[in-house]
C-alpha cells in the first residue's frame, strides 16, 4: 500500500506543473456501491452503503501526443445499513476517500476514457461492529468516461461516469473468522468544472 502511494506521488511530481499544461477539475456527484459484506448467522445478512454524495478533485498532465496521466481524489459520505429478511438496520455513517492514478485518452470528440489504480480508505464515524478495530485501506482499480463541453473562456463543463472495484474486509471481520474478502463495485455520476487546456 505504501509503495503504491509513493509511486502515485512520484509520478505526479514527474511533470512539473510549471512546465506543462496541467488541467484541473472539480466535480460533485453521487456514488452507488454494491454490498460490503454478505454474512449468514441464521438468515443472510447484507451490509451496504447508501447512495453517497461525492466530491471529486483531480489534475492531469499530457505525457504523449494524445494521452494524459492524471491523479484523482474523491470523497464520499453516506449512511450504511444491514439488511436481513428485508429489515434494515442503520449502522451509522461511513466515509470513503480514494486516490487513483489514471491514464486518459480520447474516445470521441469531447469524450475521453480513463483507467487507473489506487487506494480506497474507509472511515467509519463510529468504531463499532464491523469497524470495531477501525477503518480499512484497500487497493482500487477504476475506469470511466468524461464528457467535456466548453462553458467559459477557460473552463469546461465536465460530466463524468466512474466505475471502480476493490475487495473489502476489515481487521474485525478477519478476527471474527471471516475469510477472503468481498468484491465491491461502485458507480458514480458527477458534474463539475474543468480548467481547459486550450
Amino acid at each position, binding site marked *: 500500500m505504501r509503495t503504491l502511494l509513493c509511486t502515485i506521488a512520484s509520478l505526479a511530481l514527474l511533470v512539473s506543473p510549471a512546465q506543462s499544461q496541467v488541467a484541473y477539475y472539480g466535480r460533485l456527484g453521487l456514488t452507488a456501491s454494491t454490498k460490503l*459484506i*454478505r*454474512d*449468514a*448467522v*441464521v*438468515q443472510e*445478512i447484507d*451490509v451496504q452503503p447508501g447512495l453517497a454524495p461525492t466530491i471529486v478533485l483531480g489534475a492531469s498532465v499530457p505525457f*504523449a501526443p494524445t*494521452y494524459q496521466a492524471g491523479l484523482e481524489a474523491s470523497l464520499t459520505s453516506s449512511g450504511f445499513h*444491514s439488511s*436481513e429478511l428485508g*429489515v434494515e*438496520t*442503520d*449502522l*451509522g455513517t461511513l466515509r470513503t476517500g480514494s486516490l487513483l492514478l489514471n*491514464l486518459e*485518452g*480520447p*474516445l470521441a470528440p469531447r469524450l475521453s*476514457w*480513463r*483507467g*487507473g489504480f489506487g487506494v480506497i480508505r474507509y472511515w467509519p464515524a463510529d468504531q*463499532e*461492529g*464491523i469497524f*470495531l478495530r477501525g477503518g480499512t485501506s484497500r487497493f482500487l*482499480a*477504476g*475506469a470511466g468516461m468524461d464528457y467535456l463541453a466548453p462553458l467559459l473562456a477557460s473552463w469546461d463543463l465536465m460530466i463524468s461516469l466512474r*466505475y*471502480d*472495484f476493490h*475487495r*473489502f*474486509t476489515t481487521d*474485525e*471481520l478477519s478476527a*471474527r*473468522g*471471516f*475469510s*477472503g*474478502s*468481498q*468484491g465491491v*463495485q461502485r458507480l458514480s455520476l458527477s458534474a463539475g468544472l474543468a480548467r481547459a487546456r486550450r
Partner: protein
Amino acid sequence: MKIPAALPILGILIASISCADIASPTRSNAYEWRRIEPAGPGTAETLSFHWPASRLPVKVWAEDTLNLPAKVQAGIDKWKAAFLYREYDAVTVADSNLADVVVRLAPPSKLTLDVVRMRALAPECEGATDFDLPSGSRELQVPVRVFVNPRFDPASPGVDQCLALTVTHEMGHTIGIFDHSPSSSDIMFFDPVVSDLSASDRATAELVYHTSPNVTVSAR
C-alpha cells in the same frame, strides 16, 4: 503508444466477475442459550428471548455502590462489542423507575413461582438474574432484576474482580442468554473465571439476536 480504449474497462470487468464473496465464519462454537423449563409431567418448554430493535437501547440502572455503575457500563460495552450489526444496545439511566434492567448489590431475593432465575456462583461472589414471566405467559415483565453480592468483605482480594466479571456474566443473561456455557473459557460458564467474552460467547450472542424469540417483553 496506442492503447485500445476499452482495454482498462474490460480488464476491470473481468476481474470483478471472477471474484468470490467473503466467506462467513460457521459460528459452530456457539453453545445452547435457550432455557428449558419443566412444563408439567414429562414435558418441557424452551424459552428464547432477545430485546427487539424497537426497545433498544435497553435502559439499565445500577446501584451506586462498590463502583457498580462502572462495572455495569463495562459489561454493556463488552456485550455491545460482540455484535457486528448493532443488534443490541444499552445505556445506563439515573432513575430506576425508567429502567428495563435493575442491577443491585444484594443477595438474590426470595424466589417465587413466576420468576425464572439464572445464577452465577464464583468463589468470591455470587450473582443472579431474575426474569418475571407469569405462569402461562410468554411476556416478560420489566424490569429484569440483577443481583450481585460479595461473599466476603468487599475489600478482600479478588472480590472486586469477581464482582466485575459476575456483572458481565449477568448482563449476558439480560441480553437473552438464558443458559450457561459448559466451558470455563466462556464468561457465561456457571462459575465464571474469565473477565472477557470468548469467541463462543460472541457467536452465541449473535445467534440469540438472529433467532426468532418465543418470549416477548412488556411495555415499559
